């Protein structure tokens, strides 16, 4: 019984995850950024507790040829399992419980979203958190994981800041805020309102375009360059 169950589970991996996992088996990292497709995304949560909290909205937009494709985007509310009167998140993203009650469940949305992402790499601001919430749900609902390589704009911003500092011989200014809105203002990007998954995703996309092109001027050209630069930073801390 047990073995039958496990065999069935292995077989029954949802096709969308099967495709997802196959995309990135042998990713060529040595192409310039403009040749990859990216999905920049953001999630809003009921709260920050990994064990307890859930996704209530997802916003995402595509980048091809290092341009944001306005028409290829993904935005939805997600009905959480427990709809309570209001959570700590409600006050941040201002999505009402009524709106959520009408929204589709994550079980319906997740394959949609993974399908939307296709073979794109994922980008997010502090992306590991968003990915961990997605994979927590994926594991629970589909016993699978998404395998998209991710780029974190927060880390890229740190790389960029460090690159700029290197030129000024003034390395660590710990006053810098790596909050998405603060960075956007500091870099003089068009600024959108915060805490709406779609607009935060769009804001992150702007930030990514900015960083990608600025870093290119500092000779960080391929995907591998960005990965490496991000890691070396991690090592410093």
């Amino acid at each position, binding site marked *: 019984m047990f073995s039958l169950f496990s065999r069935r589970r292995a077989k029954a991996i949802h096709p969308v995850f099967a495709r997802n996992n196959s995309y990135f088996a042998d990713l060529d990292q040595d192409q310039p950024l403009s040749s990859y497709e990216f999905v920049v995304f953001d999630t809003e949560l009921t709260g920050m507790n990994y064990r307890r909290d859930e996704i209530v909205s997802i916003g995402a937009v595509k980048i091809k040829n290092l341009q944001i494709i306005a*028409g290829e985007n993904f935005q939805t509310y997600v009905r959480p399992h427990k709809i309570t009167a209001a959570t700590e998140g409600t006050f941040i993203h201002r999505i009402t419980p009524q709106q959520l009650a009408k929204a589709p469940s994550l079980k319906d949305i997740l394959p949609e979203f993974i399908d939307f992402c296709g073979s794109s790499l994922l980008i997010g601001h502090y992306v590991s958190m968003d990915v961990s919430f997605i994979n927590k749900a994926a594991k629970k609902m589909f016993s699978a994981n998404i395998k998209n390589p991710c780029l974190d704009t927060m880390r890229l911003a740190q790389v960029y800041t460090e690159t700029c500092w290197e030129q000024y011989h003034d390395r660590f200014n710990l006053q810098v805020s790596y909050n998405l809105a603060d960075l956007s203002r500091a870099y003089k990007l068009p600024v959108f309102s915060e805490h709406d998954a779609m607009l935060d995703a*769009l804001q992150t996309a702007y930030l990514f375009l900015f960083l990608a092109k600025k870093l290119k001027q500092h000779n960080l050209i391929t995907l591998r360059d960005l990965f490496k630069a991000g890691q070396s930073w991690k090592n410093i801390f």
Partner: protein
Amino acid sequence: MTKFKEELHAVAPKEIIAFLAGTLPFNELAPDTLNKLSRKCTIDFYPKGTVIFHQDETEVNEFYLIQKGGVKIYLKDDEGEITLKDFRGKGEYFGALPLIQNTRANLNVETVEDTFCFIFSREAFTELLQSAPKVTHYFLRSMSEKLVLTAYAELRRHKVSTRTDNALYLFSAQVGDIIKGRLQTINRDDSVQNAAIIMAGFHIGSLLVRDNNGKIIGIVTDKDLRTKVVAEGMPYQTPVDQVMAAPVMTIESHAVCFDALIRMMKNRIHHLAVEKQDEIVGVVTTHDIMVLQGTSPLYLFREILAQRHISGLYKLSRNVPLVVRTLIEEGAKANNITRMITVLNDHILDRMLTLLIEESGSPPVQFCWMLMGSEGRREQTFRTDQDNAIIYQVPADDGQARLAADYFQTLGEKAIEHLVECGYPRCPGNIMASNPQWRLTTTGWQQTFSRWMQTPDPMEVLNSTIFFDFRAGFGNSELLRDLRNNLARQAKKQDIFLLHLAKDCLTIRPPLSFFKNFIVEKNGEHKNTLDLKRSGLTPFVDFARVMSLRYGVRETNTLGRLQLLHEGNHISNELFTETMEAYEFLMQLRLVHQLHMLEQDKTPDNHINPSNLSDIEKQTLKESFEVIRRLQSVLVQEFKLTNL
């Protein structure tokens, strides 16, 4: 599921749509069309200094709308010389012209800041063009705007010799023409202290030294007094010939300034005696030559503010055309240029009156120098006739009234003389502060305006129009503010008066019936020319004035009036843009024409000869005249006039 999916992807993020909806011409689109179009938009980022279009190289396949940042658009000629054409910023676009004409980029486009652009493919742009008649109209009109720009460029190329010629001024102005004031000399036996006293008295930096036969033998400068006398501790009674430089270097008065400059630079001196038929007539300094060369407005400002003597302003006002010339070369629009001229003239007026009041003592009551006509509208070109007046506080008693009358008579008369010396011709209609009729108290002016408006006599209405363009030129502007406020309140109720003004606007026939493409004066001095002011600019000015009076607009500047009328929804958006463009073009044409005349040593006028215009200029001019027709029909409706 599929349907659900489509809905998810149906629209671009709302902030993208919001930006488009707030931008010309996308704001004209129906929400559905806008949503559809916004999905076709891509967004790109160009760091500062990115060249997006390379002139003659880039195949343009996309239309660019700037979301944030800015680009400069420039032309590079065969010699690598760069001409700046335009700056575009947030909400403005580029790439439409090559897309429509299906050509390569005709200009270079380079980001001057970190710039984000919305990009639309050729297909999306074509769809946009066909989406709504208003959008098509917008782009077609902006195409003709592009033509206008080309017309501007042609104007600059034909009529203004190129930048390098700027230096030629040094080659053409003669030393004799730029020496200031009378020759000041001192006898060789006189003391250095006396030399210093004379120099201080005349505000000059040097004196020529004569021997006992009156022959010029040397020069003593303030530097000599500083370094050889004071620093060395020599007694102040030392005769000047002990510290003078001798012999004095001279230059012929017919030599050009460039030669003078070279001679000074070679000998490391700052003064040259100017010789005319073996006689020394003056001194020229490096400073004089720098002033001559100084073509930056800032430089001129500084010079004006630094003047301690009214006579010093005379020469400076002659430099205004030089400054303007630089502006025209750099591609400034007429409105900015006339504003610059106005600011410079205002400074000269301010300085002149300040010095004059220092000389003649404070006025017995508060007053304000009123500027009218084109000065009042801040639309001066070169050598605009004077139109000014004085308004002063109602005196407390008869004694003060007499004092005030006398004081302002002297002030008015003297000021007018000085202004004439500065090169502002007298007003042929004698509307000047030297005319007692136009030196009135606040009450006096109130009554005058009320009389004009309440019992309008057609002739008087015509002659009084320029008064309605008054603004403060110097002194207490509060006095005029009250007058303006009263006027704004009163004028709109004076239907008959407004009717007279409006009717008058219809009497000018825009020269549309062309004789060999143009209506021109048939005889007299200006045979075969076109009066750009009377038949071109005046109708715009008159239109803006009568509409402003009707709607209580306090502004006097014509473009400013149009802007406010537009904001108040008194004129349509289309009429507004067309009018602005036409008016600016006519002003530009006039400025360039006048500058050209000045440079040929002629007195600037408003008569242009159409045969000197290029086809594109003629075309634009014709379009501008068509706008006048439209303005007139607006007035016919507005005032329920039957077309005359």
